[in-house]
């Protein structure tokens, strides 16, 4: 499992192992200030980072920033 989340410390406290920092609490995978195409690109990149995290061997909790 990869956890895309806005508050990294909570994710670490509850014990997630593959952690991907998100954009902001009300829009973790988006940014309403960006034009739609750029916002989609941002979302796509976060998802790719999460997919890459799933494919990365780790020893313990790791933040993929």
């Amino acid at each position: 499992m990869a956890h895309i989340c806005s508050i990294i410390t909570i994710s670490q406290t509850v014990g997630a192992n593959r952690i991907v920092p998100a954009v902001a609490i009300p829009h973790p995978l988006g940014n309403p200030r960006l034009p739609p195409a750029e916002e989609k690109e941002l979302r796509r990149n976060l998802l790719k980072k999460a997919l890459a995290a799933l494919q990365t061997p780790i020893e313990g909790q790791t933040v993929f920033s």
Partner: protein
Amino acid sequence: MSDASRNGKYRIVHYVNQFFGGVGGEEKADCEPFTKQGPQGPGRLLEKRFREGNADVEIVATVVCGDSYFVEHQEDVLRDLIPLIRGYDPDLVVAGPAFNAGRYGMACGGICSSLQSLGIPAITAMFKENPGVDQYRKTVLIVETANNVTGMEEAVRKMVRLGIKRLRGEEIEFPKAEGCFEQGIRKNYFHAEPASGRAIAMLLRKITGDPFETEYPIPFFDRVDPRPAIADLKGITIALVTSGGIVPTGNPDHIESSSASKYGKYSLDGLETLDARTHQSAHGGYDNTYANEDPNRVLPIDEMRVLEKELGFKRHPWYYATVGNGTSVDNARKFAKEIAVELIRDGVQAVILTST
């Protein structure tokens, strides 16, 4: 207490296992429940200590059951024993002490929990690692004991002190101060000293190395070993789960906006994206404007679909959602367990969890 026609004596029923009931050891653990009049084994010590504590008590009956028999027939045993115990009209029921005997602890906890819910005060005692503690500490006052019978004297002393308070109808506000396991119940009350003063006093104790006690213990969280990396995304099924509260419009399962007691499982079949008409946020812990405008900002279905095609992994046709806002750790753990079992059953190999 009801002391009519009892010569003013408090009536106690004592529950013990086959060993303390004098039947035998492990070889008799399948002994069926039975009752003896008066105290047996540790009951005699209990009665003596109660009287020394100026509580005029009488152990009117001792209920005995084999440890294995109890846990293997718990429902039947409780169905029979609870009315039987009630028939003695007890002012208090004492079970154990069970020390570190797991099945005995489960039995003591089960008996006390059932009686408590009928309004009959019941107490027990166990060692901290007895599985009965985790199972019943929330509903039953459990005195902490040593891990074996050498702690009998101390256990009985603490049980008697607690028992006397319960017989007198005193409310036990701080279980720990009574030598019991905390029940995890939070009560609001006015403290004479404001929080700022208490915090500074606590900090000073910490700095000087004196013992201090937190007013808000942090729950214990599990740790799990990381899963091995996925060698190739091609052909595997990936599921999406969110604590960000994205639900179909109208929130069909009425997931609470805070302190969620449930989660939802929703179809993604045929959906290439989410939008303001199909989905919304049910989360009460953040400004929903952006998530309601475009739910992909929390649950990224649109770009998952694109990446699926590009990278060749498979979509899981369902997503799971709850609201992570003041949600209890117990509930969250329960949701996670159920969701994980289903995902594994359905052949999902990886999950992306999104949180606000």
